[in-house]
């Protein structure tokens, strides 16, 4: 088990998946996670208000439904 990842990362899934993880792979995995996590984290901090209701994506999609101008 790599010893430089925070212990809190090791939920059951992750322990089972990563018991043979190499140090190199652990480092590159951490980079990949950061690359995905950080932009969304920053975006949420910028965009989301504490009182915002989560948007209902399907409703918004249907609200903007195209119709032909016949």
């Amino acid at each position: 088990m790599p010893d430089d990842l925070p212990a809190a990362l090791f939920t059951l899934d992750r322990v089972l998946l990563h018991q043979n993880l190499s140090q190199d792979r652990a480092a590159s995995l951490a980079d990949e996670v950061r690359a995905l996590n950080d932009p969304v984290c920053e975006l949420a901090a910028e965009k989301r208000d504490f009182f915002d209701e989560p948007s209902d994506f399907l409703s918004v999609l249907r609200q903007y439904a195209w119709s032909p101008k016949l």
Partner: protein
Amino acid sequence: MVPEALDKTISEIRADLDARRITSRELAEQVIKAVSVWQPCINAFLSFDPESLLEQADASDRLRAQNGARGPLEGIPLGYKDMFDRVGHTATAGTVLLDDRKPEVDAEVIARLERAGAIWAGGLNMAECVASPSGHNPHFGAVANPWNPEYTAAGSSGGSGAAVAARVVFGALGSDTGGSIRLPASVNGVVGLKPTYGRVSRKGAAPRAPSLDVIGPLARTAEDCALLLDCIAGSDPRDPTTWAAPEHDAMDLLGMDLSGLRVATSQTPPFDSCEPDVAAAHTAAIGVIEGCTGGVKPCDLPKPDLLYALADVLSKVEAAALHGTWMRERPGDYSAFVYKRTEVGFHIPAQRYFEACAMRGRFLAEFMDAVFSHADILILPVMPVAVPKLKDTAADTPEGIRRVLGRMTALTRPFNYLGLPSISVPCGFDRNGLPVAFQLIGPPFSEPLLLAMAHAYQDRTDWHRHAPPQIA
């Protein structure tokens, strides 16, 4: 030369079948011959059963003689990405994990196309676990591009794109989570439609990321895609994301007046970073579209790279959730590429997934206001780079995946997050003689508009009439 019948579009061969100029049996025999020539070269099929195809063709000819055609696809050989349930067949989803699965009900799209009269040539090669645009599959071999087998047919619906381009089927089903219909359509020189999220039922289709996955057709023309879409679209109680939207048949609207249409394109990153030959083909296509609409104007697209990241969070987390048990219990049944690509999802915090879901409607609304409040359609390249060679998409390191495959999907994945429809249309060739395409993106459920625009473009150009060099 391509056999004359196989070089025809679905609409053309339908007319021949209706007029009894050819039988479905004769068509099936030509398909069998063509597959025997092409399959060793491009590896497009995972399952191909000549006897079954002939039996289906004979049954179709009998039905037509007795009662007339069941629908517009009567007796026409199609293919499907090998990820759809068919009773009596094992869909691989490009992996060995599903070897023991025996579907008891047909996938909804399979059933709908059969009701329209389609007959099946077989299951088409695809990316392992629907997980990559590379064109490679470690279990069944790569799909090669029929224009030049050194190059990728892309993915994940690579077999669908290659088979349609090679004229061994008239059309095929694919699925698109981040570009998996549009990319194979683009690199193989055919038309591929990614419908609006919820337009087509996914019931009975192997998932990659259910909140992004859509099913759609690949064919040689926009008209054929319209015909196929009309057969498969609509609500399905077995897929609650589908919507009983006001249905407008795409075929009925194919000739709509586009003279006042407002078209937007983007000159902001990453859309301005195309390689020169790709940019030249795209610019020429815009010139044609300007000539048959109200004009093309530049616009700034809101945050395409962030939309990409948000889609990636959904895709990675959902794939990890779907594959967790197998990855623990059968890690040896995954390629290193798919394993590494999927395992990232186990480490994305739940907060990020929630945020990516929670902001999705808001970003769609912002995108609609920013782009579609002053344009009807958006035109962009499908891929900013020339078609890569298969050896260059064989990445198995995270850096390689990001470098090569991230570039391929840079312009497609954002629209999966937004759920918007997009169609890939061939518009020329790159410096290596491989196809180039543009994509048209529209408001939700605007497939008839996109298909009409693509149809008008194909009326004025002949890129879709070019066929790959035939094998002796």
